[in-house]
Structures are given as structure tokens and as C-alpha cells.
């Protein structure tokens, strides 16, 4: 028998806790423009490095550099900036509305706006996202009406979901946004199924799956990777690594493995890591993956490296588990400010126009809010009928539900 010390359990801990100095020295960041852009038909084993590096386009000076630059026109970039600003303003108003008791709950995107806003622009009409709760940018960037989003958040009489879902759990088939489940990771594998169906029907549409870093520990994440790689499904497998899963740092779900992107490699799925706060990089990578999918080359896994600046939800207090200044120390900056700077450097934007746009956007959001609140908020004004509780469980109401509805007096 080997004479060795007693065993002990390893429990990962983040570098710093509240009261400490924020430290991101462990986040290795490639220089903007330094990561190559392979052909879309590349084999996953030939781009293993891309699962460990970080694709970036915008450099410190606000210039777009390297092989991943140039996927968007100035006009498209201005639209992108507007989309992100709109999402930020929307968040600010809805967060306040929750604080005012107009709804029960809200989840914001602060710091992560580039991920969903830029991604949407790489998809086409008819493609389908299977989002989680921090991708409202997919709707905003597709011009889904903000009033409808607010009606959903307020569960009011005009809520398209008839008051049945938690706030922010939107659904829009028309806008390629699958109904959100509160159960994490379940939809990752559904996205793969949707993509397989598109391939079975020899269609040209593709699907996108969404998950957070923490939720990659769920078995459905792994089922999705197995099915996606087995059938070479036309799906983009997105992992939003915003460093935190409520109070749990990303190292708990990741363990000792290098990166979340690297999880794709064992499945033979090309895997990329991208600067999630760089609108241009997110768009370029998403477009690369979308082209692969559409050319029937199969799935791509993308890890977006970003930071959740706000609280997890309105029920969360991040100061209890991380330094208050940690978000300011985040080395990849703020996605809105970075794109703004880039456009100014290019001469397509200015500080004055930005201030003006901010005001215009806020007016637009406030006007939408006024319209939504005219239909009621969670505790005041119009609300969906109690009869709606009983409708729509099945296509046709079965006798037992009908009996219960009658007994309840509706």
C-alpha cells in the first residue's frame, strides 16, 4: 500500500471576495486582430486554439483590426449601437418599474448587450432562437415592439401570453424567439431538434441555442452536444460566459477544464471563443457560424466572454459575493462605449449625436411604457381574464378542465 496523506476535497473559489481587490489577471486576453479567421469548412481539430483564445476586433483605440473585421457597414453599426442603447434604456426603465411595484421581477442585460443584439443581425428571418432570459436583445434588434415586451412584463390585459409567464419570459414565433422556459438548459437540446427538423425537410433555416456558463453543467447541455455532433445539425450553440451564475463563479461549472468553448472539441464541434463586449467580433463570429450551418457543415459552439455588470435579477444582491468594483475592473470594457468610440473614430458618430440619441431613445422607451401601462400593470388596471387560466392547456379543452372552470364560475 502506498503511504500517502489523507484525501481532501477540492472546492474551487474565485480569486477575490467582497472587500478584496478585483483581479482578472487570470483572464488571458488576445490582442485585437491577432486571432486568425479560418475558412468555414475547417475541421474542428485544425482550430483547437480558437477554443482557448479570444477573438477580438475592436482595439483599445477604437479601431477595427484583423481578419474578423469588416463584416458590417457603418449604417449597420449605427443600428447596432442604437439597438444596444435601446436595450439598456429598456432595462433601466423596467428595473425601475419593478422597484415601483409595477411588476414582480426583472432581469437586466447590463454589460452583455452586444451578445444578443449583434447575434440577431447574423441570422435571417425564419431562423429560430431558443433563448434563455438574458437575450431580449434578440427581440429588440429584430424590431419586436417594446410595448408588447412591456405588456408581458406587466402581465396586463394586453400581455400576449395572457399573464401565464414570469416577466421577461417572452415568446415570438414570428421573430424567431422560442418561448422561454424557467428550467435551465432544457431548450439547448430543443434547438438541436429544431435544426435537425430543418435538415430533414431540406430547408435553409437554422437554429441557435442559448445557455449561461453556470447552466452548462446540466445534462441537457451534454445531450445537445451529442445530438448536434452526431447528426451535424445546422445549429449555433451559444454559451454566454458572464462569469457568474447567481452567486456562483464560473469556475464551479467549468471545473479545471480550460474554457467552456473547449467542451465542444471532444464532440468534434468547431469551437470559438469571442470577446462578448465587442459588437463587431460577436457579429463576425456569429456570421461565420451561421454560414457553416447554412452550408450544411454542421454545428459551431461559441463562448462569449463577457461580464454581468448588474445583479442576476431583481431578487439578487451581488455585493454579497463579489467586490463592488469588480465590474469596473472587467478588462473587456463596456460594449456600448466601445462601439460608440469606434464609430466616433471612424467619423460616423459624435459625442453630441450620442447624447441626443440617448435622449431620443429614452423618450421612445418612456412612450412605450406609457402605452403599456395604459393596459395595466401587475397590481393595477387591466389584467387577463381568470377564464384564461383554463384555456390553452390543450388544443381542445378536455372535460375535466371544463368542469373545473365551471365550478370556479367562469
Amino acid at each position, binding site marked *: 500500500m502506498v503511504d500517502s496523506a489523507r484525501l481532501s476535497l477540492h472546492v474551487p473559489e474565485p480569486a477575490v471576495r467582497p472587500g478584496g481587490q478585483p483581479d482578472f489577471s487570470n483572464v488571458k486576453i488576445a490582442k485585437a486582430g491577432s486571432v486568425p479567421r479560418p475558412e468555414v469548412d475547417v475541421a474542428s481539430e485544425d482550430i483547437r486554439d480558437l477554443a482557448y483564445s479570444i477573438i477580438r476586433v475592436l482595439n483599445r483605440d477604437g479601431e477595427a483590426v484583423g481578419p474578423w473585421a469588416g463584416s458590417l457597414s457603418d449604417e449597420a453599426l449605427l443600428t447596432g449601437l442604437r439597438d444596444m442603447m435601446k436595450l439598456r434604456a429598456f432595462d433601466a426603465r423596467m428595473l425601475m418599474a419593478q422597484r415601483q411595484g409595477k411588476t414582480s421581477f426583472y432581469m437586466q442585460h447590463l454589460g452583455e448587450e452586444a451578445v444578443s443584439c449583434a447575434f440577431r443581425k447574423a441570422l435571417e428571418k425564419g431562423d429560430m432562437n431558443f433563448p434563455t432570459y438574458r437575450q431580449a436583445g434578440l427581440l429588440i434588434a429584430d424590431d419586436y415592439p417594446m410595448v408588447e415586451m412591456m405588456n408581458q412584463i406587466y402581465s396586463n390585459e394586453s400581455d400576449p401570453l395572457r399573464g401565464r409567464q414570469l416577466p421577461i419570459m417572452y415568446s415570438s414565433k414570428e421573430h424567431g424567439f422560442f418561448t422561454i422556459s424557467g*428550467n435551465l438548459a432544457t431548450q439547448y437540446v430543443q434547438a438541436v431538434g429544431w435544426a435537425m427538423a430543418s435538415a430533414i*425537410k431540406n430547408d435553409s433555416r437554422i437554429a441557435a441555442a442559448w445557455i449561461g456558463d453556470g447552466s452548462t453543467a446540466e445534462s*441537457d447541455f451534454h445531450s445537445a452536444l451529442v*445530438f448536434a455532433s452526431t447528426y451535424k445539425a445546422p445549429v449555433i450553440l451559444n454559451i454566454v460566459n458572464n462569469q457568474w451564475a447567481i452567486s456562483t463563479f464560473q469556475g464551479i461549472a467549468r471545473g479545471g477544464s480550460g474554457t467552456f468553448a473547449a467542451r465542444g472539441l471532444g464532440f468534434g464541434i468547431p469551437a470559438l471563443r469571442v470577446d462578448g463586449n465587442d459588437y463587431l467580433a460577436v457579429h463576425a463570429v456569429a456570421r461565420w457560424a451561421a454560414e457553416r450551418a447554412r452550408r450544411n457543415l454542421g454545428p459551431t459552439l461559441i463562448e462569449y466572454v463577457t461580464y454581468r455588470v448588474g445583479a442576476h435579477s431583481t431578487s439578487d444582491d451581488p455585493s454579497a459575493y463579489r467586490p463592488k468594483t469588480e465590474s469596473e475592473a472587467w478588462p473587456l470594457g463596456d460594449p456600448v462605449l466601445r462601439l460608440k468610440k469606434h464609430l466616433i473614430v471612424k467619423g460616423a458618430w459624435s459625442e453630441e449625436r450620442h447624447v441626443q440619441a440617448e435622449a431620443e431613445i429614452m423618450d421612445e422607451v418612456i412612450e412605450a411604457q406609457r402605452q403599456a401601462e395604459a393596459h395595466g400593470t401587475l397590481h393595477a388596471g387591466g389584467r387577463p381574464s381568470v377564464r384564461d387560466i383554463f384555456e390553452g392547456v390543450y388544443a381542445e379543452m378536455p*372535460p*375535466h378542465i371544463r368542469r373545473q372552470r365551471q365550478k370556479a364560475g367562469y
Partner: protein
Amino acid sequence: MARMTMIEAVRSAMDVSMARDDNVVVFGEDVGYFGGVFRSTQGLQAKYGRTRCFDTPISESGIVGTAIGMAAYGLKPCVEIQFADYMYPAYDQLTQEAARIRYRSNGDFTCPIVVRMPTGGGIFGGQTHSQSPEALFTHVCGLKVIVPSNPYDAKGLLIAAIEDPDPVMFLEPKRLYNGPFDGHHERPVTPWSKHDLGEVPDGHYTIPIGKAEVRRAGSAVTVVAYGTMVHVALAAAEDAGIDAEVIDLRSLLPLDLDTIVKSVSKTGRCVVVHEATLTSGFGAEVAALVQEHCFYHLEAPVVRVAGWDTPYPHAQEWDYFPGPGRVGRALAEVMEA
């Protein structure tokens, strides 16, 4: 009209459905090239191609999860879970996803999937191949739950399930795959080829989901059963010489309450039989409904006959399985009350 086993009837239902509708796809573990461990999908891949009938990785949540995504796209997946005992990894997908998608999206998305699974004991499958999990599904709003008891119903109900706009759990009692079973395990099994209900039309027909069938008319007591237990109940009534009315529920959710209430109001007595364990089993639901709706007609308390509240044993299978003896004693008990 052909004589078919229940396996052949199930296969015929998928064949007819796949021929009629290009959107019907069939997949699961070993269902493609090999045709399934019970052979219920045999020949479908050869006939419809590898993209409409195929093998999957051993991942039940993956099978049901991808089926849900395909249904959202517009296909009609009919998937197989190799044994009901292995559906638990998929339970999350079934209860939190499939069952709720229509409701939570207010009809924006729907989930027309069928999940087939061989259930029940009586084939020496031990505790890992004998479970009857129907009550785990009937508790879930948004699912439909079907348990056929013969080839004719199995085909008509499976076609109806595939055409249904909502998710359907289709539980196939594997003890009945090759012939009716009356609980007398020492007697040879009667093949379906010698049974009326083994006569199955070749083409398309459906049996409405949510309608029970009276298998034996009687006036003294109502026996409510489904799946394998229908045959056990019939044998028990015969053996005991009791004028029992035997109802085959066929659909557990939605349930045909009218047929039960009509019968018990007439007989005044009720025995519920199922193979699944007793506690919180589907029999409890039936007993409660009978109490609520037929109280003033009842001459005796409702009695349940079920599997014991233990895992399904291998060597003592016949002592676990409710047979005609146990059902007969329950009939005598309610008749004496």
C-alpha cells in the same frame, strides 16, 4: 383485414401515419436499422429512409428534447423510449417543456409529439424493466396518457395520438405484445391471432382519445382497469362467476368519467385494478372520482387492487402482479359489503 399482434399493430399505425404525412418522423434507441428491441419499428427505415426513421444516442432527454424542437419546427415526431423504466432522464423535458409549451406561449408554439414506451411486468424483467409510470404522467397538466389493451385499439389510438395536436404518452403493456394475458401465468398465452381484437384493419382508422370501452357488460359490480389488467379483470369475473361490468379506460388523461359514472351508478360497486404500485397510483384518482360522483349509489367502499408498494421483484413476479385471484377476492369483498 389482417390478424396482428400488438407489436404489428403499433408498427402498422406508424407505417400508415408515415405514409400519409411526410412530417411524421420516428426515432429512438435501436429503432432505425434494427427496428427496435421489440421490433415495433421494423422495416420503417427501409421504407421511409434514414432521415425519417433513425437510431439515436442513448440519451432519453436528448430524444424527447430534440422531438420537442422538431415539433416546434412543424414535424410530428413519434419517439420510442426503449422501456418505460428509462424515461426518467426525459421526465424534465416531458413535464416542464412538452406539457407546457402551448400554455406558456399562449399557442404561439405547440408540441405535437408522441412518446411510446413499453410498460408493465410479466416478462421477467425485474425491477428495471417492469415499471408502470402512468400516474407520473396523469399528474401533469398538458400531457395526454394512453394505455391500450389490444391490437385493434393500439393501432387506432396510436394513429389518433400521432394526429393529436398535443403531446401524448403512449404506454404499451409489453405483456400484451404477443397475446392477451389473463393473469394465469401457468397457462399458455393465447396468441392475438386467435382473439377477436387481433383483427386489425390494414389502412387508416382512429379511436378517439378520451373514450373508454365497456369490455364486459354486467350489473353487480364495475371493474375499472386498463392495459394488461383488463384481461386479468375479465378472467377474474369469469372465474368468480360474478356479473361484473369491466371498463377498459384506454385513455387515462383525459379520462372518460361519464362511462365510469354511468356504470357505477348502475352497479353500486366498484373495484379499480392496476399493475402500478398502490400508493398515489391512478386507482386513487378513479376511487376519488367515483366517491365524488357516485356516492349516493354506492353499496360498498371502492376497493383498489394494485401492485405492492415495493419495487418490482424478479423471482416473485407472479406474486407481485395482480392476478385473477387477488381481483376475485376484491370482487367478493365488495359483493359482501
